[in-house]
């Protein structure tokens, strides 16, 4: 056998093995059938997790790339870095010019956006389904080779500093939100604002941005979620073509573990002459979102705060009119959850009354069983909001990506809604007593 034929044989074996590898990895695709919509999961060899959800009701496709990084991965003195990078991702990459990403999506009639939170950064676009390959080309290019230079970093910094000024000018309570986060979260990593501090932003260097990008914007630190009118097999081929050769990342710095909360109430008052009316932030430190306790906690959020007939809206806004504004929810930052309420009142007397009314409603929920009717109403409102999380292809792709990043598995989605709807009156009283304790309360009064 001469060398050429030997080489031919070896090539044959190689190509056969590559074919088998390709076939094998395709066969690893896992279909989840118990969800409210079908999904297929597979992972590329560089660690990129892919989620596909086929829905041919409209000729649209949504592509979401979510990175497991947010403001809590920033070091002290470098706040705003994650958000800066989110903005920089639209400024061009090796093969995509500055406005090209936007132009391609827009010219097709599509929409795009991005969001950064404490623990994730998400990029999403919805386009006519014939544009899927183009979006994959765009997303893979910026995952692989983002353009980071003095000019575009400075441009983005200028935009963000203007945004900080604008937010402060239009929301007099913004500083109070930031201050409250410092009290209710255990340390710097969890508590600092996503948009960053102006002085930190000014001092961020191009090298800082490059380091952050090259550390976190890697396929094995991301999830690619696609929902809409797709042919699954063809979509997988395109995904492999554009993403599989992107080098994986290594040594992702872990999130700094949160300090254990102190078992004592935190009560602070600060005077802020810029606020038009007094108000307060009230919060409770909660269970981790991954525990079973989280299901009743979410329903409690609806009992207290959602809808015009919720207990607190009814009492503070409608019946006694002690407050002019009421908002709140459970907020999740990685493995921590916080129950947060914000109230604005006409004067300090009304503020005292509102505060007492909230504590009184919470105590009532701890002592008395809620009626079946009220519980069912809260569950139905929750159910509607839960379903609306996947009402459009963009919502669905984002819902899947976020669920994956927060829980690292999508198995739980098959039964998640059922678990919320199975919460009993007894669960509510038990969870109220467990988490809404005097020791876990955090109160920040603004005068």
């Amino acid at each position, binding site marked *: 056998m001469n060398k050429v034929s030997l080489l031919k044989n070896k090539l044959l074996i190689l190509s056969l093995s590559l074919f088998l590898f390709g076939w094998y990895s395709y066969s690893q695709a896992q279909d989840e059938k118990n969800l409210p919509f079908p999904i297929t999961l597979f992972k590329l060899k560089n660690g990129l997790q892919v989620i596909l959800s086929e829905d041919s009701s409209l000729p649209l496709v949504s592509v979401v790339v979510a990175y497991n990084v947010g403001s809590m991965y920033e070091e002290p003195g470098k706040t705003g870095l994650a958000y800066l990078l989110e903005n920089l991702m639209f400024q061009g990459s090796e093969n995509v010019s500055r406005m090209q990403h936007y132009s391609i999506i827009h010219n097709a009639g599509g929409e795009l956006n991005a969001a950064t939170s404490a623990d994730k950064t998400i990029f999403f676009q919805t*386009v006519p389904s014939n544009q899927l390959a183009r979006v994959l080309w765009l997303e893979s290019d910026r995952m692989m080779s983002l353009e980071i230079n003095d000019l575009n970093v400075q441009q983005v910094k200028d935009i963000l500093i203007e945004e900080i000024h604008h937010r402060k000018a239009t929301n007099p309570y913004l500083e109070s939100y930031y201050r409250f986060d410092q009290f209710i979260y255990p340390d710097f990593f969890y508590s600092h604002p996503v948009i960053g501090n102006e002085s930190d932003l000014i001092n961020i260097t191009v090298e800082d941005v490059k380091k952050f990008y090259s550390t976190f914007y890697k396929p094995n630190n991301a999830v690619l979620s696609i929902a809409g009118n797709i042919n699954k097999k063809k979509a997988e081929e395109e995904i492999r073509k554009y993403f599989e050769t992107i080098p994986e990342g290594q040594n992702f710095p872990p999130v700094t573990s949160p300090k254990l909360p102190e078992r004592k109430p935190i009560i602070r008052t600060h005077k802020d002459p810029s606020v038009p009316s007094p108000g307060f932030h009230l919060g409770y430190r909660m269970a981790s979102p991954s525990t079973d306790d989280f299901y009743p906690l979410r329903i409690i959020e609806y009992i207290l705060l959602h809808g015009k007939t919720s207990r607190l809206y009814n009492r503070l806004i409608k019946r006694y009119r002690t407050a002019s504004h009421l908002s709140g929810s459970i907020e999740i930052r990685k493995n921590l959850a916080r129950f947060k309420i914000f109230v604005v009142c006409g004067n300090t007397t009304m503020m005292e009354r509102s505060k007492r009314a909230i504590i009184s409603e919470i105590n009532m929920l701890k002592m008395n069983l809620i009626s079946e009717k009220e519980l069912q109403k809260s569950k139905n409102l929750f159910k509607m909001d839960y379903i609306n999380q996947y009402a459009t*292809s963009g919502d669905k792709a984002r819902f899947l990506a976020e669920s994956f990043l927060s829980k690292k598995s999508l198995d739980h989605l098959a039964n998640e809604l059922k678990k919320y709807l199975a919460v009993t009156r007894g669960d509510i009283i038990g969870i109220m007593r467990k988490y809404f304790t005097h020791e876990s309360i955090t109160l920040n009064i603004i005068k």
Partner: protein
Amino acid sequence: MKKIRSQLKNALPLFLLIFLYWNPLLFSQERFRKSPPNPEPFTELRLPEINYKTFPNNGLTLAIIQRENLPIISLKAIIFSGESSSPENLPGIATLTANMISRGVSHLTSSRIEEEIESIGGRFFTSIHPDHSVFTFTFLEEYLDRALSLLSRMFLQPTFLSHEIENVKRSMQYGIIQNKTDPEFLAKRQLFRLLFRDHPYYKGTLNEDLIRYLNQKDLISYFRNYYRPNNALIVLTGNLNITATERLVSRYFYSWRKKELLNSPLPPPNPFTEQKVCLIDLPGAKDATIYLGNVVYPVTSQDIFPLIALNQVLGGTPKSRLFMNLRESKGYAYYAFSNVGSFKSCSVFFVNARVTPEVTYSSINEILKEIEGITKNKIPIPEIEQAKSYLIGNLSLQIETFENLSSKASEFNILNMEDELWKKYYENIMLIDSERVLETAGKYPLLTPVIVIVGDSSIILNNIREFGEVELFNKKGVSQGILHLNKGEKK
């Protein structure tokens, strides 16, 4: 040893090949990354069929759109009368009536209605327009029966209690007062007030003082005249069985009695034939907010699509001419867009922008130049094709949610343009070309608009002297007189 070395030598090309296969990036970029791939052939959107039924006993029309992918139902109830049908001396009565619909029915107080809505996972809200009033109700699909029962009681057995009327009036007044710090609201309201100055549509731009004159008797009279099944449309979108749903709607609305209607077609308002500049003083405002526009009429079914394309090219999105010029090129504006507002008796073409006060005149000048350009010169083919591509691709996004789908269907029905806009949208967009856009643009007085500026007059007046004559208005929209500014004499 020699044998091993020879085997290694033989295997070298293979290792090299494997190495190259797995590490292509070490040497050069894959070729397919250099440029964007071509899109696949476009999949045309087929808009879902709307199943209509008009009930013979009372003339109520029901439209059902079947969608299966979510266990929720979107309901829109439309009364084909809006603020323009309020009596001349009672502007606001249509708005008050619509807002009162969910505020009490026999044996059910307004709080109990809210309880009932939220008990079925529902959200209910009302919006009032010059030609019609819309009641939007979204709920979980298993509660269709309860939702229809509640809605029918709102229309058939409202109580209109005095204390509830007072509550609603207070909240309407509060809403308008709150809006008076919003320059967008002030500018848009003033533009429409001036454009509709001698037309029934003017009543839709009410201010808070007029609300106090509204009373229960007038409200009941308005309700009896206009809230009739032969003046109503119910649109339902969801996973619905058509026959069963029709039967259910018939059961709940059967006893709703029809009446001869007072609606008569309105003539169009007269467009402005000369440019007019107005300023609303908003002390402390950091920016200048601009609304400028004019009435366009008649917008026939042949004109509507070229007009949509013209708007798209001029100011439909951040890639359009106005945004690219005023923000990206000149750096004058935070944003600059154009719009076509459609009413039954006319349309309004308008531009809105927020700019730095020091360049207010220059910005308006640039906006007018862009309008002139698009009305006098043919749009280049690539630009018009790009606009068409956007309009075709974007339609699917506009109807993704059940609620948006119901809204679109209602909107097209209200404008009597369902055939053109719903059934033949794709074909009609494809037929647009530069000649048709130019021809359509030439029909309308786009270059003699009303220009409304909202901002701090102490800064702005100095920067709009070139206009010469400016009418000053207060925040209620009342004229404070005409200012004669000396051109070129900046202080």
